[in-house]
Structure formats: structure tokens, C-alpha cells
């Protein structure tokens, strides 16, 4: 699995990136607008000033006269501390003001205010120009009034607003970044919940995942569920196949054994008898393995839908021990049973199966003329069935590994076995909510297998 970056982190960065972009954009827009607004304000004041001057134009004895109104200049001090320049020309000749003020680019239409930006001295200035015709004597004289102002006030106002906008933008971005992180976490919550639910499942739980699923995850969930269904079907098919195969092998094996038995009784030759006995043992072993495969399939099938019946464990232990008495007797092994009345709920077939496998193992690995002890005890919370033999123990490997399928102890050379017995035991006991304790007895002599079942 190649792990790429976290979706949550990516989502957070993406959202925060968008927020940053928006912050910068909004800061820029506000700054531009503030600058524009400040410039327009200045333009308006300049226009008012120029118009106020133009309104004082009059003609006196054939000459154009004007009186600069005090207000025309005092209003120019309202925006900021800007330098003020002005010029009044009549008929292209300077009437008053700054002669070297830059000329306006286009002559304004009469009565209209024209704005222009230029430079005067070392500074940038904004100029407003208005033209009027004054009748000096009989002559109409065009008079142009230009009022100009440096732009420091405007720059200061827009810089101040821009700074304010920057502060707001940064605050907005930080808030947006926090909200992005929260939003990312929130929107990934269903995904995490589903992941947690799937990972909480047991190893053999292949039921479809039934959860509230956001739209985007529906395809994933559908694929997951269909994958699990196919997996389940595939497992069931192979188990059916194994069971079927085992069943089909067992029946002819039984015929072979019967025939071999008959043959054994009818031949007198010692060598042939030996061969037939070996054949019978091999057939028994094969039949046992096939039985275990069937057991395993049955366990796998029945644990899916576990029966909950009251079981008298003492009776169960007695019956099981009785069923195995014959094979124990063949090795001169005595089965001792020590019980007290214990009642549990569960599937009697499965539990009998498990117990039989443990006992079978114990008998198989015990040397001849020994004892296998079955003890049934009860504590406050659970029932314990322990089977103790005097065999070679469980070997040096980790005891738990022995419950894995087809895993056998490292000291079982020379003894035929499938490695399925303890797997079946483990499956049954854990399906009942219990556990299997595997121990080698003190002194390395004999194994003790305890099935712990909750009451």
C-alpha cells in the first residue's frame, strides 16, 4: 500500500489556500476602492474649489477681475496637508497664480470640470480645470481656472484604509483556516467512522456493512460489500467443496477398511497381516483427517449461526469420553473423569466436537499405558474443562500458534496429524465467547488444554 498525503490535510490546505487567495483579493479590492474613493473625494473638492473661483469672475471696466474666495482654499485643507497650486488664465494670458503649473492636456468644454494628473516640482499633483467665458467690455474672454493639489492626503487615506483592510484580511484568513480544518475533519467523519466500523469487525465477519453512507462513499461501500459477499461465497464454496470431498473420500475409505479387516482375519501369513494392519492404520488416519475436515466445515458453518441451547457440560464430557473409550483402550490409556454439574448455553454439537478433538489429540500423543484426565470445574464467571495427558507436551514453539490451521507442534514427528484439531477447538470456543488455554505441564511432561467457557 502506498500511503499518499492525508485527505483531511489536503482538504484543509486547499480550503485555507482558497481563503488566502480570497483574503488577498479582497484586500486588494478594498485597497483599490479606498484609493479610488479618496481620489474621487479629492477630485470633488478640487472641482468645488475651481468652480468657486470661477464663480467670482467678473468684468470691471473692460478687464477680467476675480477675487479668490477664502473658502475655495480653506476647503482644500480638509483632505489632508496637501500643497495647493492654482492658475487663472484669461485669453491665454496669466491672470494670477502659478505660471509654471503644467498645462492641461485637453481644453475643457465650457462649464465642465476636467481632471488631470501631472507633476509639479518634485511632486505629483491632481488638477481640476474649469472654463468660463467672461464678457470683458464687448469681447467674450475665455477664462480657465485650474486648481491643483498634491496627493499626499489621498495617499495617506488610502494607505490607512489599506492597512486596515490588510488587518481584516489576515483576521479573515486565520478564521477561515481554522474553519477549514474543522470543515475538513467534519466532512471526513463518516469515512473515518466507516473505517473504524470495518476495522472493529472480527476476522470472519463478512456481513455487509450497514451504515449511514454519504453519497460519495456509496460506490466504495457497494464495492466493499459486494467484495465481502463474493469473498464469503468463495469461502463457503471452498468449505462446501472440502466437506463434500471429505465426505466422498470417507465413504469408500470405510469400505476399504471393512474389506481390509475381513482380509486381515482371513490371512494367516504374519507378513501379510503386518501389511494389512499398516494399511488399516493409514486408512483410519485418512478417515480421521477427512472427519476433521468435515468437523471444521461444520464448525465454520454452525458458528455463523450459533445455536443457544442449555447444555449440561458434565453429561457432554461423559458422553464424549465414552465415545473415545475404545480408541483409548487400544493404547491402554485410561480416561479419568472428574466433574461437577455445570450448565452453559451454546451449541452442543460444536462443543462435543471441540471436546472430542482435544481428547482425540490427548490420546493420540499419549504414550501407551498412561492416563488422560478430564476435569470439569466452575468459577464465578466461567466453566473450565481441562484435559491433561502425559504426552510429550506442546513443544517449544508459541502455544497460541498451534490453534492456526494446519499448524502442528515441533515435536510431533512420527505421528500422523492434520493440524486441524486445535483450530476447530479454538473456533468453537471463541464462537461461544470463551478461550483456549494451552500449557505444557511442569517438568515438560504432558500437555494441559483448558477450554474456558463463560457461564
Amino acid at each position, binding site marked *: 500500500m502506498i500511503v499518499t498525503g492525508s485527505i483531511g490535510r489536503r482538504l484543509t490546505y486547499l480550503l485555507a489556500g482558497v481563503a488566502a487567495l480570497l483574503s488577498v483579493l479582497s484586500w486588494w479590492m478594498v485597497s483599490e476602492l479606498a484609493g479610488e474613493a479618496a481620489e474621487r473625494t479629492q477630485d470633488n473638492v478640487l472641482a468645488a474649489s475651481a468652480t468657486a473661483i470661477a464663480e467670482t469672475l467678473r468684468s470691471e471696466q473692460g478687464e477680467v477681475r476675480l477675487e*479668490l474666495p477664502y473658502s475655495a*482654499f*480653506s476647503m*482644500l*485643507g480638509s483632505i489632508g*496637508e496637501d*500643497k*495647493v497650486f492654482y492658475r487663472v488664465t484669461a485669453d491665454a494670458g496669466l491672470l*494670477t497664480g502659478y505660471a509654471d503649473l503644467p498645462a492641461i492636456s485637453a481644453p475643457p468644454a465650457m462649464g465642465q470640470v476636467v481632471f488631470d494628473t501631472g507633476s509639479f516640482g518634485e511632486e505629483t499633483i491632481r488638477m481640476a480645470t474649469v472654463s468660463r467665458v467672461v464678457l470683458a467690455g464687448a469681447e467674450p474672454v475665455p477664462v480657465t481656472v485650474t486648481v491643483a493639489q498634491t496627493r499626499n492626503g489621498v495617499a495617506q487615506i488610502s494607505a490607512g484604509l489599506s492597512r486596515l483592510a490588510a488587518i481584516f484580511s489576515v483576521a479573515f484568513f486565520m478564521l477561515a483556516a481554522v474553519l477549514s480544518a474543522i470543515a475538513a475533519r467534519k466532512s471526513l467523519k463518516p469515512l473515518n467512522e466507516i473505517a473504524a466500523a470495518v476495522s472493529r469487525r472480527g476476522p470472519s465477519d463478512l456481513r455487509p456493512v450497514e451504515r449511514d453512507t454519504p453519497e460519495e462513499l456509496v460506490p466504495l461501500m457497494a464495492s466493499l460489500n459486494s467484495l465481502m459477499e463474493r469473498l464469503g461465497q468463495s469461502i463457503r464454496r471452498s468449505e462446501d467443496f472440502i466437506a463434500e470431498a471429505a465426505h466422498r473420500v470417507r465413504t469408500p475409505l470405510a469400505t476399504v477398511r471393512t474389506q481390509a479387516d475381513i482380509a486381515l482375519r482371513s490371512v494367516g501369513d504374519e507378513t501379510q497381516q503386518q501389511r494389512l494392519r499398516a494399511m488399516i492404520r493409514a486408512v483410519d488416519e485418512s478417515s480421521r483427517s477427512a472427519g476433521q475436515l468435515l468437523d471444521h466445515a461444520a464448525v465454520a458453518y454452525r458458528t455463523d449461526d450459533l445455536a443457544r441451547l442449555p447444555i449440561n457440560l458434565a453429561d457432554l464430557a461423559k458422553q464424549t469420553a465414552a465415545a473415545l473409550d475404545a480408541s483409548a483402550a487400544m493404547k491402554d490409556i485410561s480416561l479419568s473423569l472428574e466433574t461437577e454439574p455445570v450448565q452453559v448455553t451454546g451449541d452442543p454439537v460444536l462443543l462435543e466436537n471441540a471436546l472430542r478433538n482435544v481428547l482425540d489429540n490427548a490420546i493420540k500423543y499419549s504414550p501407551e499405558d498412561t492416563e488422560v484426565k478430564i476435569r470439569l470445574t466452575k468459577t464465578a464467571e466461567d466453566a473450565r474443562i481441562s484435559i491433561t495427558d502425559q504426552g510429550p507436551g506442546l513443544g517449544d514453539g508459541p502455544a497460541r500458534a498451534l490453534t492456526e490451521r494446519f499448524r502442528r507442534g515441533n515435536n510431533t514427528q512420527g505421528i500422523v496429524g492434520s493440524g486441524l484439531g486445535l483450530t476447530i477447538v479454538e473456533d468453537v470456543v471463541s464462537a461461544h465467547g470463551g478461550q483456549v488455554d494451552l500449557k505444557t505441564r511442569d517438568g515438560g511432561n504432558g500437555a494441559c488444554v483448558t477450554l474456558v467457557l463463560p457461564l
Partner: protein
Amino acid sequence: MRYACLAFVMMVWASLSNAMVIENQRSYEGSGDQVLRILSTADLEVFEPYILAFQERRPELSVDYTVVSSAELYRAIRQGAAFDLALSSAMDLQFRLANDGFAQSYRSDATAALPAWARWRDLIFGFTAEPAVVVLSTDRLDGLEIPSTRQELINLLRENPDVFGGAVGTYDVRESGLGYLYATQESRATDAYWRLTEVMGRLDPQLYCCSGEMIDDVRAGRLALAYNVLGSYAAERIARYSGGRVKILRMQDFSNVILRTAIVPKAAQQPEAAGAMIDMLADLGLREKPGNWHLPPLIAAEMGRASSFGPIRLGPALMVYLDPLNRRAFLAEWEDSMEQP
């Protein structure tokens, strides 16, 4: 040859036009080579304590102090005369110099501490607030009621032509930049100004260039009343020659307050030293108590800001009456009122 001739003529013309009418000048030697050249409208005796105090702070600096009229100062700085600091009570001319780019900007903690109305663009700094006052001779006005508003003053002048005939003094606004500033601002602020001018014009007024001479004449009994005198000078002169014969009066209806301002001319060679002087003047301008200085602090104007005694505002409006057309119109009206046959 023709070019050489032209150049010679231009040089002569330039030197003539550059020649300043200097009223007073004094050098104060410091321990170092640097010279701070100050061009000022304040009389030497008024400003000397400031120079001495400055040299206590900066003993290495020599100070060269030149006293000229405000119009001369304006002309000299416009022509690029090599001064490091220009101090003038003619706010309008100082403002125009700053507006037209003849001032350097200067910024320090001391100038930043000045109230916003006492500075403009780090170019021009007010360091005193001086009201226009009326100076009376108590001898000549014996038995008459002391006026407190312009209306009362007009009535007083009208009713006692025998007392005030030929004995009323005021600025010749054609000569004095400060007188012109007072007159224009007052004409804008109160309509009583023109009526007062009319009344004074009928009394054969004496016209002066400077506050000092007016006060001296009142003290000597040659004038019964001097109108629009720079208050700080009046106070200073009366403190010096006190005899109880001179009374200072501040009109209650309206009274102009001018700021004495400093600029660092563009041509300044010692802007650092000029800045140090501005710092000291700004500190003194913000002092809480009058102390032993001849020029009043800005705080006096601060207290009057709420009433009609606020200082004339440093702003582009100051340039209105400097416009030649406006000046011509104003002077024509003033002459019509003041010079009656």
C-alpha cells in the same frame, strides 16, 4: 561681447535684487566651526535669550542671527539665500514658502509632540502663539471708559475725536506682512473691521511698519492708542519700561492669534543644527508655564481654541490674500478707508 555685457547686467541686477534690507545682525561665537544662520523677524533683544539657551545645549555651534522684515525674509528665502532657519510671524508668507517647495521637511520627537494645528507636513512648525492686542496710553485716555469690544472701541473713537485725532496708530498693511495678515484675517472674521478702519481713517491715523515703534510711541505719549499690536512685543516692552502708563487690551469679541513659525529653507547648509533649534523652540512652545521667556507658549492658544481666540489656521487658505489680485483689491479698499482727505 554682447553676451558678456548681458551677463554683467544680469549680475548687477541679481546682486541688487538680492540685497537684503537688514535691520539688525549679530553673531554668537561657538566653540566649533559650524555656523547656524538664522533669518528672523523677531527683534534681537526678544530672541537673544533663545540663542543663548540654544548655545548652552550646543556650545559648539556658532549662531548668526539676522533680523529682517517678514517680506524681506520671504523674498530672501524664495531667492535661495543661504540661511539654515527662517523664523517669521507672517504665517501666510511662511506657508507660501513651504507650499511652493522652499522648505525642507524635518521630523523629530519634539515636532511630533506639537499639536496638529501648530505644524504642517513636517515643513513648518509653530512655536509661539501671539495674540493681536490694543495698546492704550492711560494718560491720554484718562477719564474715558476702557473698551472691551470693537463696537465699544468704534464708539470711543467716534465720540472723542479730540483725544484720538492724529493719535491712533496701526500697521501700514502695505509695508508690514504681519499687519496685512492681521488685517485680512480680521476683515474675514468680523464685519466691525471695516467700520473701525473707516473711523480710524477719519482720525488721521499714524501708520507703522513695526509693533515696537508703535508701543514706544504709546509709551512716550505720542499715541493714545495702537491697534493690532503683536501682543508678545507689547508685554515684553511694558515689562521692560513699566511705568503704568501703558495698558494692553485684548478685544473680547474676536482676537487674532498668530503662530510664529519656523521653516528650514531648501538652501540650508546646516539642517541638523536647524533641526536642533526647532526641537528646542518646539519644547519651549509646549512649556506649561510662561517662564522667563519673551515669547508666549502655544498653550495660550490651546486654551483659546474652543472660543473665538483660536490661532489662524495653517493651511492653504493663508495663500488667498497673498494672491496679487486679492492683495490689490484688499489694499485698494484699505486705502479708501484709511486715507480720507
